[in-house]
């Protein structure tokens, strides 16, 4: 616990030691680690001096938080209204099939994780997929495969260099 708190010391700063910053702290930890581990949630509970169950209760209430690690290229498929009307679900299914994981899952090589999101505000370009920081407009099942092939070799090269 102390070791973890040390690791999170740039987030668990004295000026954030207030119950009202709980959601912010969860967001910051998730931003840093990609997900919320049980240990991280307990560290936050300890820091704010509130029960771990409270932290867990808040974290599970909001859609943003995840409890399993995020892939190197987090894939988010939009399931908002505009995307739904033009086949967003087919895109999500294609993504799940191509990556061979379920929604909320991660590939064994930790390259990709898959989530759904309700509208990223690009409805005019629906259906939309967000991979990392990039928005992919007007997706179709065949384009899913293309997009993944373009991303994958790049990251493999990168990891080989490292």
């Amino acid at each position, binding site marked *: 616990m102390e070791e973890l708190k040390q690791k999170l010391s740039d987030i668990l700063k004295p000026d954030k030691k207030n*119950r*009202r*910053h*709980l*959601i*912010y702290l*969860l*967001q910051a930890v998730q931003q840093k680690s990609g997900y919320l581990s049980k240990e991280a949630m307990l560290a936050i509970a300890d820091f704010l001096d509130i029960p771990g169950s409270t932290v867990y*209760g*808040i974290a599970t*209430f*909001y*859609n*943003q*938080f995840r409890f399993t690690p995020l892939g190197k290229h987090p894939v988010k498929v939009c*399931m*908002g*209204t*505009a995307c*739904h*009307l*033009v*086949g967003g679900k*087919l895109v999500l*299914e*294609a993504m799940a*099939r*191509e990556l061979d994981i379920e929604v909320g899952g991660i590939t064994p090589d930790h390259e990709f994780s898959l989530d759904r*999101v*309700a*509208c*990223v*505000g*690009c*409805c*005019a*370009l*629906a259906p*939309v997929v967000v991979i990392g*920081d990039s*928005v*992919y*407009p007007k997706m*179709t*099942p*065949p384009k899913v495969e293309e997009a993944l092939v373009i991303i994958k070799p790049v990251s493999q090269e990168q990891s080989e260099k490292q």
Partner: protein
Amino acid sequence: MTFAEIQNQAKSDWDSLYHGQAPHILIGTATCGRAAGALSVVEAFNKELAKRNAEAKVAEVGCIGLCSLEPLVTIIKPDSFAVCYNNVIPQVVPTLVEGYVLGDDPCLDLALGTLGGGEGEAVYIPELSRFEHEHRLLLRNCGYIDPGNINHYIANGGYSSLAMALKMEPAAIIEEIKSSGIRGRGGAGFPTGRKWELCRQAPGETKYVICNADEGDPGAFMDRVVLESDPQQVIEGITIAAYTVGAHDGFIYIRAEYPLAIERLKLALEQAKNLGMLGDNILGSGFSFDIEIVEGAGAFVSGESTALMYAIEGRRSMPRARPPHSVKSGLWGKPTVLNNVKTYAYVPLIIARGADWFSSLGTEGSKGTAVFALAGKMVSTGLAEVAMGTTLHELIFDIGGGIRSGKKFKAVQIGGPSGGCLPESMLRTPVDFDSLHKAGAVMGSGGVIAMDEDNCMVDTAKFFLDFIQKESCGKCSTCRIGTKHMLDILEDITAGKGKIEDVDLLVELGEDIGGGSMCGLGRTAPNPALTTIRYFRDEYEAHILEKRCPALVCKELIAYYILPDKCERGCEHCVLACPVEAIGSTEKGIKVIDQTKCTKCGSCQLVCPPEYNAVVKLSPPSLVPAAGAKDKG
């Protein structure tokens, strides 16, 4: 610096851009522009300009609302027209630089039109007829000014309302807002002036103002565009509200799915603070106020006002029963004003141009303009701002350009998960709070989604109920269990397992949930189902009685089939595209789908070359000819 000095400085910064010696290139880099590749266009311009040693500047601006034409680029020349180009790709950048930045050829074949506006006038493109139907107030600067430069906002009249308001009595400001007739743009349409008055009158030293930028409707993006393209107008409005009610701390609660809006808002706050528009002793008035950004954590119900306050407090965002109203006991139990992004953005305009001017726009009960996000099957998707009372028909056909690909209009969904689906016969409905309510929809957030013959109304109702059911906070059982029950019934119907009594049961459940839920989420949740039943009952009946989905959407009720006499035989597109190897070939080379393997992903239909167009959807699936008949082709 006095405000007059700040204005002068802003003016010269602005003039150097729009009236300078060198050409300027404006590139829309809001989220929609970026998704369409605007950043690579920016890079291409910078590279080309450097290569040609050209003296020209690139400025990133927000979104003009023509999302389907992104990336949009405007080239401004000192003594010539400002020409706007649509769907620009990096490959044409050298042509544009050679042609219009350096030369005198405006490259008309690539152009969309000329860009007008600015200096108090709203941005417009005279060549596009849709602008004749629009009335841009909040969008007046969007796509025209650099949202990352507060001077552009000030040079166009920005912050003069705050300077004026700080010299007014708060009671006089309330009077002005009240007589303008403005109602909140977050959906419910509560009179804004009344809200401020109640909060001002509420006893207590500490008060708060909150801006609701949660924009939870999954299909609306007006608030995002306003914040990404002209954030200062929102900050100015919030600050005027704070002065009026006597608050010193403000919060903007914004959804985390909008990273660019958050980034631009942070920069805007910093710039406002540096110029003394926020912080201690604002413009020497003695009034101090600051704004903090709180990022939402993704829950639709957080957009409800009491829930949102719990979210800021770091709690679960579950709405509570009212009274007490937030204006008396809101954030941390203190009197609080909470308004939508757009509501605040109107405030500086009302102060500057007067309540009479504002109330002269719109209808009896709904004053001013309304901003809509046009999406779905329209030709030109994007943002539109029209006077209240404009008809849905004008919005969809004159501004949105009608339905694309020559398809037929079927319905318009307005107001998001709380709203309804209206058929063609209701297109004469004026868009204002009361008319839409009467039609069974709501103004809601302002999402307008057009649907064509390929969209299934039962599936649409199911989509919204699925969303609502997942987002219900669970506090009251009417909403938690009721919406689940409605969803189960809709799932049965779309799977061909519905019973004809189910339709009336849905109506009965819907009315009970609408009447018995505690917050607006549950109270409006049945609207999508109720309106589709009201206007499209025949589609429900086709699903139930004929096991047929007329729009060919519901998976369990359709099958893909390759027309033997249309199949080209030699081509293997569908075979290669099928992810589950469900497509085989007859001896004659005709492709055949194995219905037992098919997952109905639609890939074969997408890749079948348009000149053959051999893949069709059939409903009910029993229409697929039995195997054995297939070799006849």
